[in-house]
């Protein structure tokens, strides 16, 4: 690990400054969620304190988003994303293990298939995929929402890259100890792969959390609506309500914010566990 041990005030200041710059648009979104709807676009120019702070605070947007099924939509998004990440990690890490560690014929070709799978623009194949899902009767089901997210070629690619870096000697030693392939995967490779698994989880999370067109097509029933689609509905054809849009976005960004902040800790502590890596 090359993290500097010495604490540098200058570096700390730069970090905070960069974070603030990144946060400004989100701050404006947050503030707008607490403004009366008619005031959201009122103070754009010229620049004034009211451009970045509400002149009158209101909770009407935050309370207003719940009237429909928004609570259910948030639950759906969290549930679908969680299942996707867990199943996706299992499927993608085993595949990546085989591609990186086990010698078998056509390994390169199978890897190429995985690469091609993430080059295909998902939105462009949504309509034929819808036809396939319809044959399997998966409209308006959690299965239909979750399935496209779990076999993620990009996550396989990421984990394969990581597994390639784990020295051969480790698995040869494990073979001598009488471990099978699954034992090597489970007890040698996975314990060394904390940060890589987190990164793969991030890929799976973003794919499913940002999913919009697919949920709209496969699960339009009110009970299966996801948060991204529910937010879009606050901008109906007549009178889009930006107060509600920003309030809803704020609510659904708080959840990943907490999860990601907590998980960041593992990026730092994982180092000890990968110490054996050369």
């Amino acid at each position, binding site marked *: 690990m090359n993290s500097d041990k010495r604490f540098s005030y200058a570096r700390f200041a730069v970090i905070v400054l960069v974070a603030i710059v990144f946060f400004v648009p989100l701050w404006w979104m947050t503030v707008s969620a607490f403004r009366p709807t*008619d005031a*959201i*676009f*009122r103070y754009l120019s010229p620049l004034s304190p009211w451009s970045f702070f509400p002149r009158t605070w209101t909770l009407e947007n935050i309370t207003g988003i719940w*009237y*429909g099924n928004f609570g259910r939509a948030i639950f759906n998004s969290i549930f679908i994303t969680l299942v996707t990440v867990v199943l996706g990690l299992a499927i993608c890490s085993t595949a990546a293990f085989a591609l990186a560690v086990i010698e078998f014929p056509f390994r390169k070709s199978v890897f190429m298939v995985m690469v091609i799978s993430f080059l295909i623009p998902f939105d462009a194949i*949504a*309509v034929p995929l*819808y*036809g396939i899902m*319809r044959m399997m009767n998966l*409209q*308006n089901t959690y299965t239909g929402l979750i399935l496209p997210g779990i076999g993620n070629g990009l996550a396989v690619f990421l984990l394969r890259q990581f597994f390639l870096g784990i020295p051969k000697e480790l698995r040869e030693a494990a073979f001598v100890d009488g471990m099978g392939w699954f034992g090597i995967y489970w007890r040698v490779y996975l314990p060394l792969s904390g940060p890589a698994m987190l990164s793969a989880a991030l890929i799976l999370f973003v794919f499913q959390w940002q999913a919009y*067109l697919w949920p*709209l*097509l496969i699960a*339009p*029933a*009110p009970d299966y609506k996801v948060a991204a*689609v529910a937010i*879009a*509905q*606050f*901008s*109906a*054809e*007549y*009178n*889009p309500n*930006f107060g509600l849009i920003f309030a809803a976005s704020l609510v659904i960004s708080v959840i990943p914010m907490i999860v990601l902040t907590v998980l960041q800790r593992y990026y730092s502590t994982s180092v000890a566990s990968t110490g054996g890596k050369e």
Partner: protein
Amino acid sequence: MMNDKMSRRTLGAALLVGAGMMTTGTAVFAQDVTINFLSAQRDDIMQPMIKGFEAANPGIKVVHQSVPFNDLNAATESRIGQGDTSIDVLHADTPRIPAFASQGYLLNLDDRRDVIDAAVPNAVDLEQVSYDGSLYAYPMWTSTQLMYFNRDVLEKAGLEMPSGDPEQRLTWEALLDMARTAKDSGIKYGLTFQQVDRYYQLQFLFESNGAGSGLTGDEMLTPTITNDGWIETAKWYGDLYESGLAPRGVTPEQTDDLFINGEVAFMIAGPWAIARYENAADLNYGVAPVPYFEGGKPVTPTGSWSVAINPNSEKKDAARAFAEYISLDPEGAYLSIKNNPNILVNAEAFKNYSADMDGLTDKIGSAIDIISYETKNTAVGRPRSRGFVTFETIMNRTFSDLRNGTDAETALKGAERQLDRALGRIQ
């Protein structure tokens, strides 16, 4: 063959149910039926009429599946287009009916022509739901455009309030003079269109100038947008923005805010804008008819949403009952605008709408008189073409380029070349 047998059996069952109903006099449907209704409106707009229908028809439940407007086409194509039966009733945007009908997405309603004629007397409204001489949807709402003005801004600039009388509407030439005076008095902009860059709201400019809709030919698949009238009007539109009289870079969703915040003097917008303007505490506004070009004729946009039935629906009777309740039944039609003041085409229900709007006359002028006049006398619909969406998409981008400063002739010639190719793909 299988299908024939099935439908005969279904018919037999329906007749039995019908007979049962006559003897017992209870619910129309032997067992509960759930129908799915696809629309691009917010759920709170659609719920009053759905609740009204469910109360009047115990045994039928309506599930409203709402998708955002921009995705309604994708949802319709991928679901109804693939023969899906999970949608029974759909809310259809009137200019899209020719394309949908020609692809077999909508049930032919010619057998209900008498009832529809009786409820909706205005021929323009029926034309909006027709394709190739047949009816494919029940007309529900229509639209027009009004010119809103900010009384405070006009007063401050020393301007006279425009007349609400359609016979005395302003010319664009006179309006732009007033808008310039207003802008010079210290506000950001003189004038804006609510739906900037959208064909729906700009077509009437070209029609008023005698330039035509932009599509011609037997099937309305030939672009005609490079005649003098089009180029002249397009240049006029571009100049509005080049001169700073109207705002560049503001999206259609954000124009209402300019008006509410007193940043623009005149606003061309639909009657539904009243819902939001009435909620803005400090806004002192009035309405007038939209202007026309000197030497041209007064024209206004029209068309809105109608309701259609999926020909693959397995619950056509219930679907029909619902569609007719929200369009032909005055009670249902009136409930359809409870949370969203669109203009009703149903003559009976229009009276209620009219009475509601009359309550506003003292404050903003007689919007309802203008609406009645325009829908009867000056309404010109969008071209009835199977290629309308392609045309609209390319035109909207062209209007956007004009607004951002592209030369009118260059923009229109480029658009016409694109249209020739794209419309040529439609067989």
